[in-house]
């Protein structure tokens, strides 16, 4: 199991209410993520997705069960620093994650706090900003950037700490389509070029489809785990969870319900074009 970076073992967690006992935000969750994977966690609001993000590097610890980062239990305070260096988290609202008044100083904040040598910090800051496409803004003031740009600065700040895994908690929720695309591309590059494991929490079905593996959460529990094709094969079930399905899968389902045989890939545009072409040739 040397290649497992993140492991949830039967994890339950509940937030504290004022007086009443709240239902668990995450319940009996077991999950393994391997090094180098690009995994999307999909679910509607309140399904427990963000709690998974906070549990993944010990920002909160389970009520029962355990979370392991490279075999280190997040409940073990002695490993806390090592765990947080291994797994970084990027949150939804970029405005809450910027600490400095100049872009490059913001990116340097993390490595400075880890006691990295100044020359090495310089190198990492430049490299991180280049990866997210924000290098030419290195001397700008963060508050004058667009939402998507700010979010990419926040991501660069995490990359500069050289984590092996980054958990993105709805990093695109507050961004416009252009900003969303830029952030998606930055995440893909981290995964492909630097080999960083990416866990990407979202409620946008189109974005989740770009991952290799999708984990679906509903009502604090993991309900599905598979490739995008496997996940969207059952259109009606996904809809019952309050989630969108791609138009392609939805059309394929309508045809199937009608008794029309449709085979092959019905998720991607090109796949569906081929599948429909076969039907039209037949008809």
């Amino acid at each position, binding site marked *: 199991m040397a290649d497992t970076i993140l492991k949830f073992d039967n994890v339950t967690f509940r937030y504290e209410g004022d007086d009443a006992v709240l239902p668990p935000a995450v319940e009996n969750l077991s999950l393994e993520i391997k090094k180098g994977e690009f995994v999307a966690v999909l679910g509607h609001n309140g399904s427990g997705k963000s709690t998974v993000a906070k549990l993944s590097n010990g920002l909160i610890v389970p009520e029962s069960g355990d979370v392991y980062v490279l075999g280190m239990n997040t409940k073990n305070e002695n490993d806390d620093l090592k765990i947080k260096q291994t797994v970084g988290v990027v949150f939804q609202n970029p405005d809450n994650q910027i600490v400095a008044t100049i872009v490059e100083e913001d990116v340097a904040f993390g490595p400075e706090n880890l006691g990295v040598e100044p020359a090495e910090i310089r190198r990492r800051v430049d490299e991180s900003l280049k990866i997210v496409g924000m290098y030419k803004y290195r001397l700008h003031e963060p508050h004058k950037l667009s939402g998507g740009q700010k979010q990419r600065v926040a991501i660069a700040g995490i990359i500069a700490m050289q984590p092996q895994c980054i958990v993105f908690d709805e990093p695109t929720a507050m961004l416009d389509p*252009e900003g969303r695309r830029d952030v998606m591309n930055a995440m893909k590059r981290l995964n492909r070029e630097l080999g960083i494991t990416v866990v990407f929490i979202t409620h946008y079905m189109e974005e989740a489809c770009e991952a290799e593996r999708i984990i679906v959460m509903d009502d604090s529990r993991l309900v599905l785990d598979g490739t995008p094709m496997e996940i969207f094969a059952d259109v009606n079930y996904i809809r019952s969870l309050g989630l969108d399905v791609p138009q392609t899968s939805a059309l394929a389902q309508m045809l199937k319900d009608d*008794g029309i045989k449709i085979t092959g890939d019905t998720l991607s545009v090109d796949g569906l074009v081929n599948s429909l072409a076969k039907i*039209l040739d037949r008809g």
Partner: protein
Amino acid sequence: MSFLRTENLSYIYGEGTPFCVTALNKVNIEVEKGEIVAVIGQTGSGKSTLMQQLNGLLKPTEGRVLLDGEDIRSSKAKKLETRFRVGLCFQYPEYQLFENTVYDDIAFGPKNMGLSETEVDKRVRDAAKYVGIPDSAFATHPFDLSGGEKRRVAIAGVISMEPEILILDEPTSGLDPKGREQILSLIKNYRDRTGKTVIIVSHSMNDVAKIASKVIVMYNAKVLMTGTVDEVFEQSEKLCQIGLSVPQITEVFTKLHTMGYPVSEKVYTTEQAYRELKRVLGGGGANA
């Protein structure tokens, strides 16, 4: 004559400073009574600036906005009247809730219009009904609601003024699919029941395809295209060039059409796609 139109409307932010930006450049749009108009375009294309011009929040650098044929800035009285006749709901309106109860927040607008207490009460109840907020939630503090509920309360706060034109700036952004569906159906419902005009700014082509009767595409501070959903989505190449995309299903049908299959390219929703396939497959061989 159009109900609402703009005449060579231009607006420059920070005019006379080194940071000046032309947000609107000789924009001419026309909106008729009862339409659902969708305004689409990339960030920075001038959509939100245009919306703020339509109810007189911003003063044009050049050009005019005409409501019922009259310049909305022709007099002080006209300016005030326009604010009530054209209701504007900003992006992320849930951040603008400020009263202690849901009821008071929805009542704020009508109260400021100087309406009687009974009329205010009636309007609050009507508006809440449109957005699906039950009476039992009236005493709740807005902050105790979910994100989607807060947004609906904020929209009710504009609807309660019964504007003749309801403008919503990206009403579905940041919501999950369920929240998005609720907002879209409430907009459609509102138009169908009151016959009033609705203008929405949207990034989502799927949303636009579902509800709009007219589409205005903004690009670089100008109007690039105006037309029905059909007319605009037909030009998918042009839309892609300016960073917008057509619905996924439209791509599929455009490709099939190009490959020589006898299907229409004018398919924007899964329902249309399904009907089109059924039409082409006809009776024979469909169930092979």
